[in-house]
């Protein structure tokens, strides 16, 4: 019987289980060694069988996202890789502190941008980059939000470089998704591999729902006892591709899953239509984008929204989580300034560094990008989901030439970064257990303080050699284990 890892070779990349390149492929710690020994107890056939069972279970449970084509809709699962990604307690401590620090800075930055604008006046961040940003919301200027919290739920994409250090690739401060997979992946792992996870000492992820609910109650408009605060989750509805997650979170928090048509505004208070009449809502965890929240304030064509919601919000009648206008903080161009933003507000060095970033709206950055295009990753600042990203070393000459023209035409639309040698993790593939690149999206919840869910969503690029982990482009996910000390 062939040992699972006999032919496993992470090459020049940092491996999440076996450490830095050329480290003789020894597990990174005694705990990981124990996990590897257990994995070796399975042969490939057994692993594949359990993997198929896990996929079937995901379909049956409807843990799916919906992909729409012109004619039809298809329910797809996020492919689940059965080999876990393991983080030591020490590694996790760094990520956790780093994420907390970053969110504190982001909230201070947003408060400043929508009030005194000191950060702009002091020249830390260019004024036009913020005020001219499509995600900057002028109507939010001067609006008070409870506790000064703008970003209640944040997902920060972290990657591990070749030297083993963690770096932030992207901030998601609007309506980050994926947390349901973190918890469902764990439950799936426990069901599919009860013999494998026993007595390892993995930190639990099950209390995300109650934690989120608690944080939302903490930011309710004043004047109510905690037990009387009414929270609802606002979803665009069953046709939204993240609908499963909305269901999951509403259920975990024990709150109603509402759509715009279930809500109505009277005298700057929000009410939901129940079978027994109207009932007030104090806090809305909304998974609807800013533009669609309120046709009176934003996109007038929105049918998902609630007319008058923003006016009620401005007057403090309801709390929206996340706040309106947070997109200005997770913009890819503003991202480049985040280390400076952290130093400016907190007078601390960033615990998690950025990936080196060239801002093409600045002459110097553009010059560097144009000179090194074949070596760089070039991203449009306004896109998400991995769309429009050019990976220089893997791109055709024609694609590079096209991007060169786009850069010259509209430099402000792009940033450029060196290719990060994303770490790899052993992954079950048709060819056996092979290294595949991974990233990590830890989720943080902020009310009175910030709590980070231990672990996060590990996304894995299932295609050999690919660095793109997005689910829309062939990515899968793994259970993420944070080990107890």
């Amino acid at each position, binding site marked *: 019987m062939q040992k699972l890892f006999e032919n496993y070779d992470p090459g020049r990349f940092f491996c999440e289980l076996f450490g830095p390149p050329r480290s003789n492929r020894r597990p990174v710690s005694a705990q990981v060694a124990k996990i590897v020994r257990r994995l070796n107890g399975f042969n490939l056939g057994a692993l594949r069988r359990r993997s198929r069972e896990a996929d079937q279970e995901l*379909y*049956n*449970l*409807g843990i799916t996202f919906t992909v729409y084509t012109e004619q039809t809709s298809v329910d797809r699962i996020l492919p689940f890789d059965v080999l876990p990604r393991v983080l030591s307690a020490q590694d996790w401590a760094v990520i956790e502190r780093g994420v907390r620090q970053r969110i504190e800075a982001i909230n201070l930055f947003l408060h400043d941008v929508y009030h005194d604008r000191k950060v702009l006046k002091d020249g830390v961040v260019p004024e036009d980059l913020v005020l001219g940003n499509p995600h900057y919301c002028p109507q939010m200027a001067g609006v008070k939000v409870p506790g000064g919290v703008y970003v209640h739920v944040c997902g920060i994409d972290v990657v591990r470089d070749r030297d083993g250090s963690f770096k932030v690739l992207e901030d998601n401060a609007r309506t980050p998704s994926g947390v349901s997979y973190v918890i469902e992946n764990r439950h799936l792992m426990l069901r599919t591999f009860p013999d494998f996870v026993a007595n390892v000492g993995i930190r639990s992820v099950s209390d995300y729902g109650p934690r989120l609910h608690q944080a939302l109650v903490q930011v309710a408009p004043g004047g109510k006892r905690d*037990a*009387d*605060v*009414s929270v609802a989750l606002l979803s665009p*509805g*069953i046709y939204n591709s993240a*609908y*499963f997650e*909305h*269901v*999951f979170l*509403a*259920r975990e928090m024990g*709150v*109603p*899953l*509402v*759509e715009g*048509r*279930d809500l109505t505004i009277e005298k700057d208070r929000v009410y*939901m*239509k*129940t*079978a*027994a*009449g109207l*009932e007030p809502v104090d806090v809305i965890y909304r998974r609807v984008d800013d533009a669609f929240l309120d046709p009176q304030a934003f996109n007038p064509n929105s049918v998902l929204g609630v007319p008058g919601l923003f006016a009620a919000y401005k007057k403090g009648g309801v709390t929206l989580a996340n706040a309106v206008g947070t997109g200005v903080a997770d913009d890819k161009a503003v991202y480049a300034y985040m280390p400076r933003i952290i130093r400016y507000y907190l007078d601390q060095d960033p615990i998690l560094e950025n990936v080196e970033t060239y801002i093409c709206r600045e002459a110097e950055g553009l010059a560097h990008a144009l000179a090194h295009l074949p070596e760089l990753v070039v991203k449009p600042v306004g896109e998400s989901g991995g769309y429009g990203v050019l990976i220089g070393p893997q791109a055709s000459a024609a694609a590079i030439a096209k991007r060169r023209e786009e850069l010259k035409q509209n430099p402000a639309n792009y940033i450029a970064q060196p290719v990060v040698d994303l770490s790899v993790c052993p992954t079950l593939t048709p060819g056996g257990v092979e290294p595949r690149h991974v990233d990590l999206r830890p989720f943080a919840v902020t009310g009175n303080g910030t709590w980070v869910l231990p672990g996060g969503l590990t996304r894995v690029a299932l295609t050999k050699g690919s660095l793109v982990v997005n689910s829309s482009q062939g990515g899968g996910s793994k259970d993420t284990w944070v080990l107890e000390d």
Partner: protein
Amino acid sequence: MKINLLARFAESIFWLARYMERVENLARLLEVTETFTYDARGNQDWEAILEINADMTRFRAGHKEVTLRSVAHFYILDGANPTSIVASLDMARENARSLRHLISTEMWNQINVFHGRVKALDRRDVSPAKVSTVCRMIKEGCQAHTGITEGTLYQDEAWNFYWIGRAIERADQTSRLVDIGYLRAIRTSRDLSSRAQDTHWGALLRSATGYHAFRRVHRIRTDAVEVIRFLTQDEALPRSLLTCVGGARALTRGLETRHGMNTGRAALATLDGIDKHLRGTDVAALLDAGPHAFIDDLQCRLAEYTQVLGRDCFAQDA
């Protein structure tokens, strides 16, 4: 704090229940028709089902002959037919999908898997040799749903709306059976006491799962008036009109007595009226005149109840 059920969810769970009940009844009716309605020459009567459901025109648009194969296809697989089992299950699943955070995971899981299994059926599965097996599978899928719901659904207002939906749909379906049964009876023979009629009334009772119960109560030969009375006014038969309406009444009253909602009062009043009407009906006289007008009137009254419930509890515009 306690949050009352959203009006939209009250409506969704009411309809989830109705669609599942509808599927179960249709599967049973098809199975019973397939197994128990051969006449002396071995022919089966498939036309009555189409006529009673007022589906003949739509059926003719897509199928030539009225045969077991074509009717089974029309009522089981045909997604373009809004009264088909596949179409009803689609609707049930859509409603369940919007209720996912309220219903139990086990309920959702079963509906999702059951829906997938029925969607995977093709023409070969509704061939004469297989149709009764398929109907049984569908019926049992619905019954598994019922059992899981009974055992796992939290008993707040949503529970009441669910079981109200089951009861109202069941009453509606039984009223259709009475209509079909009578139509088949007068068609099979003008002599309402012939042997052919015995099998015929037996099939009608089986469609409402009342055959053996009826035998326990009436050991004499099957009598048309007694059969119709049994399906209409018996208070112990789960699918009789009176039982269903009585169940819906208790559940509607429970909205106020158990859950403190006063929005169900007008709907309760309409049910009180239906109950009184059913109890006061003279079945023998009904059969002399032909029951169709009575059934029609009853269905209108049930629709009125649903409409009042929608207006007051589902936040529908009047």
